[in-house]
């Protein structure tokens, strides 16, 4: 347990995890919809503020897990409640905590019926999502990972669009079926590591290559479905399109990150040999995702679908960065996870705001609103520019690092990824052009009203982060730097060891 810096003071992480759950219970007896909205806003806001405390107390000069707490949970099976954050997870935790209040705000007038259950689902989601990022016990991780499916299913299935039933069931089945083998892999690791579920103890162990490959495959299926990587992505457009705005934001900004987080946290350190062996395939799948997502997005008429497919492309960049296994790549990938969360979350909010007015997600119904919604299109322009990595915005930094890492790894791969960045500009600019100006056949949009204060408040922080990360990524990189360096160092040590071991075998 020396990987943990135990937190003896206020249990900050537990507070972050369980406060939303407490909020859900507080909501239960409430009657009025308005009170439910305010109570959930208060709870998510407190969590968001607490996350600043987390950042303030975070030590950027160690790779150990900080704010760690460990309590015995299920003694007969040696399952513990162990949580902690390191440089890889902290940004994701903070992002989750910060985005949730805006999800509540975005649902303020969008959700008109069954408000209380909706807010309860959101709060339970928050508990599960923060928990997934900080869990250091594999059973705890798995329980939260799966438990999250129920509220998300309900979010899509109850408050979703016309094809909500198809979309919600597809989402549920895909993710559940994907993570079933993960459970078997967890049990195998438990058995192999003398019955412990403590994740850091499972890392860098000399497992044989065959079991490593099998475990990697189990990890890969679970995480690739969640990311989603091409060709496991088909649930994503359906789910995104049908989900209510808050659901889309949660899906895009946070849920997708769990897959890539899983790769960095589990696949790399637990099965490094298999990672080395299989990484070319994963890399080329990422390239396929980038190109495929981009081309498909180019052809969409439905704005939510367009952004959903663009997510497939962007997440392709993230997995690309992770599996080139160098510092720029992984740091770029982690930064890109945050960027994608901020930018795509904001884009979904924007589409939601249009939808609330026109009740259509069709691009053709939203053309030419620029004249009547100047504030809105200003926001939209920034987020669209950010989405395709315009210099000065956040995604530029992330994508640049990923591409730099990729070129360092392999020239062909880097060249193959470049068209993705170009297509991204094409589809985002196409959407922007249509929404702002449109053509000669614009529908009459003169009745449309611009954003109200609540909506501006919702979008402004996203813009802040877009520019902040874009212009000064230093503080963000600093948070993760130590952990990523440590991860790669350990990886190289492990690689050297296994090479040495192989040489000894050969000499004999």
């Amino acid at each position: 347990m020396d990987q943990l810096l135990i937190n003896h003071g206020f249990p900050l992480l537990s507070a972050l995890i369980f406060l939303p759950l407490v909020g859900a219970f507080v909501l239960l007896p409430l009657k009025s919809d308005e009170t439910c909205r305010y109570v959930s806003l208060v709870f998510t806001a407190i969590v968001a503020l607490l996350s600043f405390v987390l950042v303030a107390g975070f030590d950027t000069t160690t790779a150990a897990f900080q704010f760690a707490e460990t309590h015995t949970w299920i003694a007969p099976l040696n399952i513990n409640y162990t949580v902690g954050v390191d440089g890889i997870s902290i940004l994701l935790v903070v992002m989750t905590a910060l985005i949730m209040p805006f999800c509540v705000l975005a649902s303020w007038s969008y959700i008109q019926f069954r408000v209380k259950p909706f807010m309860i689902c959101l709060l339970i989601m928050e508990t599960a999502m923060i928990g997934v990022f900080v869990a250091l016990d594999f059973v705890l991780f798995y329980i939260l990972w799966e438990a999250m499916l129920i509220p998300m299913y309900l979010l899509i299935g109850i408050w979703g669009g016309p094809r909500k039933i198809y979309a919600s069931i597809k989402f549920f089945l895909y993710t559940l079926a994907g993570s079933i083998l993960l459970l078997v892999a967890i049990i195998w690791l438990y058995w192999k590591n003398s019955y412990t579920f403590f994740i850091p103890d499972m890392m860098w162990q000399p497992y044989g290559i065959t079991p490593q490959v099998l475990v990697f495959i189990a990890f890969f299926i679970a995480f690739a479905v969640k990311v989603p990587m091409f060709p496991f992505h088909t649930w994503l457009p359906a789910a995104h399109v049908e989900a209510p705005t808050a659901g889309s934001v949660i899906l895009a900004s946070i849920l997708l990150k769990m897959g890539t987080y899983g790769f960095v946290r589990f696949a790399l350190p637990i099965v490094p040999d298999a990672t080395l062996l299989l990484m070319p395939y994963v890399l080329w799948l990422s390239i396929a995702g980038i190109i495929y997502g981009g081309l498909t997005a180019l052809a969409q008429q439905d704005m939510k679908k367009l952004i959903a497919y663009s997510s497939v492309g962007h997440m392709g960049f993230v997995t690309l960065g992770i599996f080139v296994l160098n510092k720029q790549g992984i740091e770029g990938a982690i930064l890109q996870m945050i960027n994608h969360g901020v930018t795509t979350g904001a884009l979904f909010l924007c589409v939601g705001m249009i939808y609330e007015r026109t009740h259509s997600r069709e691009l053709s119904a939203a053309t030419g609103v620029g004249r009547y919604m100047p504030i809105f299109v200003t926001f939209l322009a920034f987020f669209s520019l950010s989405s395709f990595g315009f210099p000065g915005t956040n995604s530029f930094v992330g994508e640049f690092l990923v591409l730099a890492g990729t070129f360092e790894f392999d020239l062909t791969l880097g060249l193959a990824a470049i068209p993705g960045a170009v297509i991204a500009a094409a589809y985002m600019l196409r959407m922007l052009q249509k929404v702002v100006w449109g053509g000669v056949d614009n529908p009459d949009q003169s009745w449309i009203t611009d954003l109200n204060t609540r909506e501006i408040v919702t979008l402004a922080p996203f813009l802040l982060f877009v520019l902040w990360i874009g212009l000064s990524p230093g503080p963000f990189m600093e948070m993760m730097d130590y952990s990523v360096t440590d991860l790669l160092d350990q990886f190289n040590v492990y690689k050297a060891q296994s090479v040495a071991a192989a040489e000894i075998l050969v000499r004999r």
Partner: protein
Amino acid sequence: MLFLPELILLLGTLCLFLVSLGSPAIDTLRKLTVIIMALVMLASLACLNQKGSLFFDSYQVDFFSQLFKFLICTATLVVLIFSEDAPGIRSDVKAEYNVFLFTGVLGLMMLTSSVELLAILVSLELSSFALYIMVPMRSAESGGAMQMESGIKYLLFGVMSTGFMLFGMSYIFGLCGSTYLSDIAVQIEPLFYQPAAIIAIALMLAGFFYKLAIFPFHFWVPDVYQGAANETTAFIAAVPKIAAVAVMIRIVSLVSAEGQTVVNLLLICAIGSMFYGNLSALVQKDFKRMLGFSGISHAGFVLFGLLTLSSQGYATSLYYIIGYAAMNLACFLVVCTVAPSGKNLAIEDFTGLHQRSPLLAVILAIGLFALAGIPPFVGFTGKFMLLVSAFKQGHVLAVVLAAINTAIAIYYYLSVVRVAYCSDPEGATMQVAPGTLTTAVSLLLLLVIVAMGILPGAFLNLTSTAIGTIL
């Protein structure tokens, strides 16, 4: 004191019998049955720590048996409470129905204490014959003629499996020269190289495979679940299974390390049950029938714990069957409440349940998600621990197949949650309002499902202690 719960139940049954000679009001009858069952439950709770043996050592009272008795009474009480006025039962035989129900419970309670072959047989038959009669007692308005068909099927399959069991017992007696399980355990231990011993154990288990609905003794399940009244099905789906697990643990613990063939046999039955149950459940339209098939697959999971031949595995099986009973009763509670006239429910009949009764919808959803094995409910924790114990014994392939089954199963559970939550009823539909006692029971079941899922430690200790007293 040793025999107190059974004695009270026996007296209660006689009392009911006397009542049944007259023509009691339905309301009185309901109060009477609930009170008697509650008394029996309290008695079994009070006798939880009794120890001793009765009837020439063929009837053993220990923590194991007492825990099972408590569980059986509690489950029966839950069924009695949520059946309200038992609308599915022919109104002219309601009193008799309860007499048979109590006789059945008596048989099951005695089964858990029986440690001698003849005692096992007698108690098993006592419970089985009562159940055979209960099934066709469904009212014609709610069941049509289905109940007769299922009654006959239940009887024929039951008698057949009893035949298998008796045949197995005769082998055991021939091999060991005793009918006491304690003697048999000693005698049979070196005999597992003999096919006779393996066949004997396997045949003996067949009788309980039937009760627990394990492939290939599951054929009665769908028809009986569909044909019996909702209340009867709720009882059959939960209570006899608990008792069956008790006896199976006693029988399986006879198998020594050499009995790998028995383990393999159990493994095949377990995997067969899972696949058969889950794949068949996918296409069901009738909700009870679907639960029947799901029950077959869950029985396969229970076997996973037994086939490890380790006390930890038995404890997990016991834990799982308790959880299963809770999840299943939660679902049947919803069935009985949503169908006030005692009719069968198709899955579509749950349409828009969230509007008709939010509480019932939550219970149904949690019950089904728990059955599907989604954390943090007991279904997940139980399955997880069963998989871990099977993995420790090296049954890796079986664990993978079981995991795949979980993925298959989610679809049909989810499709029920879908109609309950995601579709709105067309036109005006009846509101459903459960009674006060039923509401209380439903909340209790909910609590059990969640508590056993999140904090399984205490429950595991309890079941491990129980297993410890018989090994």
